[in-house]
């Protein structure tokens, strides 16, 4: 019995030892192999993965010494996924990066400082200044290189405009209100505009009315010289009240829009139920597919008494500070930012390339691109919104949405809203140091 037990034990231990030895030998062989440098590229956006994969394939074929593996990260889970990956040392070598998360990832020390490479390669002169301003939002050092730049523009349905007898898009907030009223026909479930209150970039809409009435702060930020948020000023409150009135008094927006998301706005616009919506540049493709290329018009957001200011954003490429293949990553990024490659990807996606020489491409001469391009050329009108503050993502997604919903649903006044928002932005700035 004891002998049988011993013999059984020897067999089990022997098998375990053999398995361990074989695994070790297998690992050794892998380490001993020499071949191309392999880098991983994380793509954290809902759209555009196909274009990136095509560029990665092209690059890997051209540069045999570097092979790129594209890892698509679901956008809805991107912050938790990337945060976990960075803290666990498993993040991709390089990745696409949104301006909304850039500051917090830089402050955490996870992204490489690309300033010297950007300067040495001359990319800082090739990329549109608006995009470079985003890249250098933390400590004036480039931590990403832009590949897309998007103004927050106005989109309209030309057929609905014609039906309502409107020939040109509104130029100022008063015209905007009148046009929205003309376009609205509640009996037909048709509305002039979508007063976006739900999650997904609603801040840019109501804040446009605020800054166009009360102006911006120092360096086009939302802060004055003393570091106080300007949005609580009386003119800003007036602008916000006008925007809220579009929903509450004028009723030019679907009642559900108070909590509706960006996706709900898109669905309603594409169902020909909305005359005007506001959104990012990459929205062009989605909306053109929805209501027809010829039917889609683009314009700059309306001006107010204090002028015409635009929100804008953009995504870029960044390198993991802990990557062992930073040179290979930079080479891949340079490849993707060649004007022809940058134009090719943006054409598929319908957005504006960050590389200015790509702007001469024929497809960008289409009328629908002219308003967004003009907005980007007007650098003094571009708002430097506080995405450079860590915690801004939470402010925009959660806090701002909750506050504007309260205001639209009549649970607080525009004045209270402006104060609570300004206080929150002041707190963010103080926390950031």
């Amino acid at each position: 019995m004891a002998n049988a037990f011993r013999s059984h034990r020897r067999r089990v231990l022997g098998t375990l030892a053999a398995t361990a030895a074989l695994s070790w030998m297998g690992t050794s062989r892998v380490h001993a192999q020499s071949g191309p440098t392999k880098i991983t590229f994380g793509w954290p956006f809902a759209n555009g993965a196909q274009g990136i994969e095509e560029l990665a394939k092209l690059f890997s074929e051209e540069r045999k010494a570097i092979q790129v593996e594209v890892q698509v990260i679901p956008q809805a889970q991107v912050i938790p996924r990337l945060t976990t990956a960075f803290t666990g040392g498993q993040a991709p070598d390089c990745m696409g990066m949104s301006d909304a998360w850039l500051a917090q990832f830089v402050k955490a020390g996870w992204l490489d400082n690309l300033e010297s490479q950007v300067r040495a390669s001359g990319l800082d002169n090739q990329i549109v200044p608006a995009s470079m301003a985003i890249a250098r939002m933390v400590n004036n050092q480039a931590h990403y290189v832009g590949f897309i730049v998007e103004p927050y523009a106005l989109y309209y349905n030309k057929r609905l405009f014609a039906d309502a007898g409107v020939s040109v898009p509104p130029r100022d907030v008063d015209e905007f209100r009148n046009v929205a009223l003309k376009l609205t026909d509640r009996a037909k479930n048709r509305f002039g505009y979508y007063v976006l209150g739900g999650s997904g970039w609603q801040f840019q809409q109501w804040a446009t009315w605020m800054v166009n009435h009360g102006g911006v702060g120092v360096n086009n930020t939302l802060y004055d010289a003393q570091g106080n948020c300007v949005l609580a000023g009386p003119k800003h409150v007036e602008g916000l009240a006008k925007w809220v009135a579009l929903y509450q008094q004028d009723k030019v927006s679907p009642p559900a829009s108070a909590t509706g998301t960006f996706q709900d706005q898109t669905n309603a616009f594409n169902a020909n139920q909305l005359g005007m919506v506001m959104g990012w540049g990459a929205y062009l493709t989605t909306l053109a597919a929805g209501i027809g290329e010829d039917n889609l018009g683009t314009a700059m957001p309306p001006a107010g008494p204090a002028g015409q200011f635009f929100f804008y954003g953009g995504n870029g490429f960044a390198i993991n500070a802990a990557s062992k293949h930073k040179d290979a990553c930079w080479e891949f990024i340079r490849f993707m930012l060649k004007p022809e490659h940058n134009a090719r990807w943006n054409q598929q996606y319908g957005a504006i390339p960050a590389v200015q020489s790509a702007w001469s491409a024929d497809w960008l001469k289409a009328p629908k691109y002219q308003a967004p391009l003009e907005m980007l050329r007007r650098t003094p009108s571009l708002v430097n919104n506080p995405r450079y503050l860590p915690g801004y993502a939470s402010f925009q997604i959660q806090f701002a949405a909750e506050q504007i919903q309260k205001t639209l649903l009549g649970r607080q006044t525009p004045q209270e809203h402006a104060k609570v928002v300004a206080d929150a932005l002041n707190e963010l700035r103080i926390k950031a140091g």
Partner: protein
Amino acid sequence: MMRTAAAVPADVPALARRRRWRSLLQREAFPWLLVAPVAILVAIGVLFPLVYVLLLGSEDYSPYLGKPSQWVGLANYARVFADPSFWNALVASVIWVVGSVVPQFLLGLGMALVLNETFRGRGIVRTIILAPWAVSGVVTGFIWLWLFDGTIGVINDLLMKAGAVDAPVPWGIFTETTWAMVFVANAWRGAPFFAIVILAALQSIDPALYEAASIDGATRWQKFRFVTLPLINNAIVISTLLRALWTFNFIDLLWMMTRGGPAGATTTLPIYIFDVVYQKGEFGYGAALSVVLCVLLITFSAAYWQLNRMSRLP
């Protein structure tokens, strides 16, 4: 020689002791050796995160601000109880759990009772009724969000065609209708779970008990009350407890449909924790919130279990 002669009798028991030890080790340690990999995996997978969250809950750790972690003791826990958002989220969580589990249970019980009957096509009906359980929370959220859409939704369209309403109902802007919307969606998805568990319990009841009850002149309701219900009680307790815990921690369906709105009314504790950790980057405070959530759930489970035991005592 003297030493050797004296050592021999002394070494014999020592040798025997060593042999006994070796034998004991072989018999006792070997099974432990085999169990060790799993035990290590459990320790890594379960205990380590638990201990880590407990430790993190006592630190001010905000990596997004680029600040080093600082030990703050119980300060994060004190902050939790003074945080009005925590209490609002706790109330929202209780509404979410009660409003979800009660209709799911009643629907599931009804479904199980119907499926327990013999009729033609029972297999197909079972498959169809149980299908929603296989759909993910995110997909369920999308389906019902579009059905309830306040501008282009199918439900509004049907209501308008039926003449029940003049204009589309903006379901998502009122607190009450938003809750109703998510309860319906969650009931659609969760009721099959109760149906599966209760159906299994129903099928284990001996038919002779019903025959005996019939002979005693019991009505259908009396059979259900005094035969069926006591015999499926354990299944009901376990399934409601499990579903309540899952629902409490559940984020995807609610997040998809409301994003915590309108005006934060449906921001439950898990949604709040997600915002604190991943959007605000306050990992220490988020960990403290998670520990409090865990303690609350353990307390609830223990109380529920105890209440059920007490209710069954003669």
